[in-house]
C-alpha cells in the first residue's frame, strides 16, 4: 500500500498503487434538481454501446429513484453497511476546511481500501472492501421507480399535510443519474489481479483492456459504485468508456473539438455538464477560475462528489436536490451539502449565468465569460435576497472557438403574422 492524497477526504489515504495522475481528468456535474428520470441518457448510452448479445443487463448509464432504487439493488446501502461493520461508529467527518486540499474538511473514517485490511469476506482479504452482487440484484435496472419515503404512515386519499414545505420535504424521492465516475483512485483498477484496468494518461478515463481481462470479476466486487459489468458471451468485464472517441474529438460532428459523451449531450433536462480539468502534481485541481467545472466545484462549491467517503475520489459531482432530507444527503454527498443547497437555492449572479451552460452544446466548454446585462427581477428566497440579471454567458472550446452564447433569461421569439405557424 502507498499513501496518496485524496483531496476530497482532506487527507492522505492508503491505495495499493503509487499515485499517478493524468494530464487532464474527465469530470462531470449532474444537477439533480433538474432530472426528471426520463432515461433518455440511459437509452442514448444503451443504443450506442451496449446493445449486443451478452450486454442485456449492462447499463453503463442508469437513473435510479432514491432512496429505495438502485442498480444493482441497494448497491450503496450494502457498501455503507460493510464500511460500518469494519469501522463501527467511526465513519464521520471533521477537521478544517481548506480550499483545494480539504474543501469538505477531513474524513476520519475508513475508505474501502483501508477497511479491506480489517474486514475478511468470504474470499478472504481483498484490496478493496466490497461485495459481488447476485444475478437477482442486477435483474431490474429501475426497481422502486418513483417510490417516495415519508416520515409518517400515509392515509388513503389524503396528502400528508405540510409534506411539500421547504427547506426539506417530509415526503420525498429524487432521481440519481449515474455513470462510471472514472475515479482518481479506482477500486476496480486496484482489485484487478490481471492489471487489465488502466487509467488513460491523456484524460483519466478508466478502461478495461479486453485482451487482458480474464473474467475474475474482482473489479465488480471492489467498485463501490458497481459500475463494471460481466459479459457472459465474452467472459470479460466491460464498463463505461467515457465515450472516449468523442472526448478525443474524433466524432465527425465535433469538427476535431473534444465533445461531451452521448449521455451528457442527449439529456433533455440539461442537467449535465462534462468537461476536462487540469491537475497539479499532487492530484489536486489546477486553478482554472473560468472553467465551469472548476468554478462550480471549487469556487461556488455547489457540486459535490458522490459518496466521497468510499475513498476512490470519484470525478462525478452532483448538485444535491434541495428538497431532500439533509441527513440522507450528508451521507451521500458529505459535509458540503448545506452550503451547496443554500447557495443553489438563491444563486448569485455568476452562478446563475454558469448554470445556463448545461446542455447548451455537445462540445466541451473549457472556459466561460460573462457579459453583464440589466437587472430583470428581484425577490426574496427564504429570507435571502435574490436578484436576477439578464447576463450573457459565452462558452469557449479548448482552442478558443466560441461554442455557446446564451442569456440568463430565455430569449423571446415573436412570431411574425405573415407565417402563422412559423417562428
Amino acid at each position, binding site marked *: 500500500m502507498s499513501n496518496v492524497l485524496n483531496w476530497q477526504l482532506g487527507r492522505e489515504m492508503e491505495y495499493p498503487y503509487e499515485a499517478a495522475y493524468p494530464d487532464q481528468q474527465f469530470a462531470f456535474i449532474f444537477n439533480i434538481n433538474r432530472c426528471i428520470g426520463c432515461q433518455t441518457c440511459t437509452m442514448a448510452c444503451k443504443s450506442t454501446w451496449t446493445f449486443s448479445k451478452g450486454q442485456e443487463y449492462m447499463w453503463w448509464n442508469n437513473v435510479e429513484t432514491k432512496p429505495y432504487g438502485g442498480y444493482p439493488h441497494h448497491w450503496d446501502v450494502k457498501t455503507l453497511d460493510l464500511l460500518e461493520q469494519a469501522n463501527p461508529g467511526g465513519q464521520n467527518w471533521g477537521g478544517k476546511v481548506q480550499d483545494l486540499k480539504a474543501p469538505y474538511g477531513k474524513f476520519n473514517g475508513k475508505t474501502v481500501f483501508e477497511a479491506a485490511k480489517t474486514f475478511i469476506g*468470504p*474470499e478472504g482479504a481483498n484490496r478493496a472492501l466490497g461485495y459481488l452482487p447476485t*444475478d*437477482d440484484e442486477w*435483474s431490474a435496472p429501475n426497481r422502486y421507480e418513483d417510490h417516495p419515503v415519508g416520515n409518517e404512515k400515509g392515509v388513503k386519499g389524503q396528502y400528508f399535510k405540510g409534506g411539500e414545505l421547504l427547506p426539506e420535504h417530509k415526503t420525498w424521492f429524487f432521481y440519481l443519474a449515474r455513470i462510471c465516475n472514472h475515479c482518481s483512485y479506482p477500486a476496480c483498477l486496484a482489485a484487478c489481479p490481471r492489471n487489465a484496468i488502466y487509467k488513460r494518461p491523456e484524460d483519466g478515463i478508466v478502461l478495461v483492456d479486453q485482451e487482458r481481462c*480474464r473474467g475474475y470479476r474482482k473489479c465488480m466486487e471492489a467498485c463501490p459504485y458497481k459500475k463494471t459489468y460481466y459479459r457472459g458471451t465474452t*467472459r470479460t468485464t466491460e464498463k463505461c468508456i467515457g465515450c472516449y472517441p468523442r472526448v478525443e474529438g474524433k466524432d465527425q460532428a465535433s469538427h476535431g473539438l473534444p465533445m461531451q459523451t452521448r449521455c451528457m449531450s442527449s439529456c433533455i433536462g440539461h442537467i449535465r455538464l462534462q468537461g476536462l480539468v487540469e491537475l497539479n502534481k499532487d492530484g489536486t485541481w489546477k486553478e482554472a477560475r473560468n472553467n465551469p467545472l472548476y468554478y462550480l466545484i471549487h469556487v461556488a462549491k455547489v457540486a459535490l462528489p458522490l459518496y466521497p467517503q468510499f475513498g476512490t475520489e470519484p470525478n462525478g459531482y452532483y448538485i444535491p436536490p434541495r428538497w431532500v432530507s439533509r441527513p440522507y444527503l450528508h451521507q451521500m454527498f458529505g459535509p458540503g451539502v448545506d452550503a451547496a443547497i443554500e447557495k443553489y437555492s438563491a444563486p448569485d449572479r455568476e452562478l446563475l449565468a454558469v448554470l445556463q451552460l448545461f446542455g447548451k452544446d455537445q462540445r466541451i466548454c473549457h472556459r466561460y465569460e460573462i457579459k453583464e446585462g440589466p437587472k430583470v427581477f428581484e425577490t426574496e428566497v427564504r429570507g435571502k435576497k435574490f436578484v436576477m440579471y439578464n447576463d450573457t454567458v459565452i462558452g469557449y472550446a479548448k482552442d478558443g472557438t466560441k461554442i455557446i452564447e446564451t442569456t440568463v433569461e430565455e430569449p423571446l421569439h415573436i412570431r411574425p403574422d405573415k407565417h402563422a405557424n412559423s417562428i
Partner: protein
Amino acid sequence: MQLRYDEDFIEAAAFLCASGRRKGVPSLQIARFQREREKLYSILDPDERNTAFFKLHLDWFREWGLEKLITDLLKEFPLLPEKLSVLAVRKTRGKNDEGAELYVNETNQRSAILALRPESFERDAALRDYVRHEFTHLSDMLDPAFGYAPTLDLPGLNGAQQRLARERYRLLWDITIDGRLAADGYTPMAARAQHAAAFSRGYSFWPEEKQAETFDILWQTRSPRHAELLALIADPRGLREAHRPAPGASCPLCDFPTFTWADTEALLPGITTRIVADFAAWTPEQGLCGRCLETYEAATALQMTMP
C-alpha cells in the same frame, strides 16, 4: 435419462466455488481452476472456446461435488430416471423463478427442467430440501397412480373461478408433499403449522373441525390422488347446488347478480343442450339470467342457420 446442464448455470456454480462462497473448496484447486480457465481465452474460434469453457466448467462442477448433490437426490425418486428422457438444469436470476416443470412432446416423450439459482450451492441443506420438494412434484406428475393431468378438468367454472381453483390446487398439493417429506424425516419447505394456517385461510368458509379434519387427511396421506385434490378445489362451498333463481342472486353461468331470471320451463331443448355443453354441472333448476339466455338463443339460432 440424460442429465443436461445449461452452460450459464454450471459456469456460475463453478465460479461460486472459485470465489470462496461455497465452503470447503481447497484454495489449490481454485488456483488450478483459474489457471486452466485463463488458458481457454487464447482459443480464437468463439464456438470452440465456448465448448472448451463448457467442458472445463462441467469437469469442475463434478469435481467440486455439485453434480453429486443432484444425482444423489435423483436416487430417492426412481420414477424420474425411469420416465423422463431428459432432466435439464438451468440457471434462474431470481428466487421466484426457481422450480421444476414437466414437458411432454408430440411423441409422448417426457422431459423436465429444474431451474435453480447458482447461489443455492452456498447452502447444501437448503438446496437439498428445495430440490427434494420439487422432485416430489415431478414424481407425482409422472406417477400413474397420482393420475396427474396438465389442465384442471373443472367444467362450469369461469376464468376467475378457474384461477382460484388453481391456487387451491397448489396449496393442497404442497401440503401433501411437505406432509410426506416430514413423515420421511426430511425438512419440509414449510412446517405443518404454516401449512395449517395457509389451509385455514384458503378454506375459512368451512367450520374449524372440518378444516382440521381435511388438513390432517392431506398432511398424512402417503398417496394423494389428482382426482381427490380436484374434488376439494372445484366447489368447496357447495354453491353450485345452492344456485336457485332469486332476485339479486348470481347467475350460475356468468356469475353476475341478476334480477331478470329467464323462464327455464320455456327453454328450447337445443338451448339446454348448448348450455350443458359449456357448463356440464348446470341444471335448469339453477336458472340463468336474461342476458345469458339471449346469448344462448343467438348462438343456437346461428348454429341452426349455418349450412
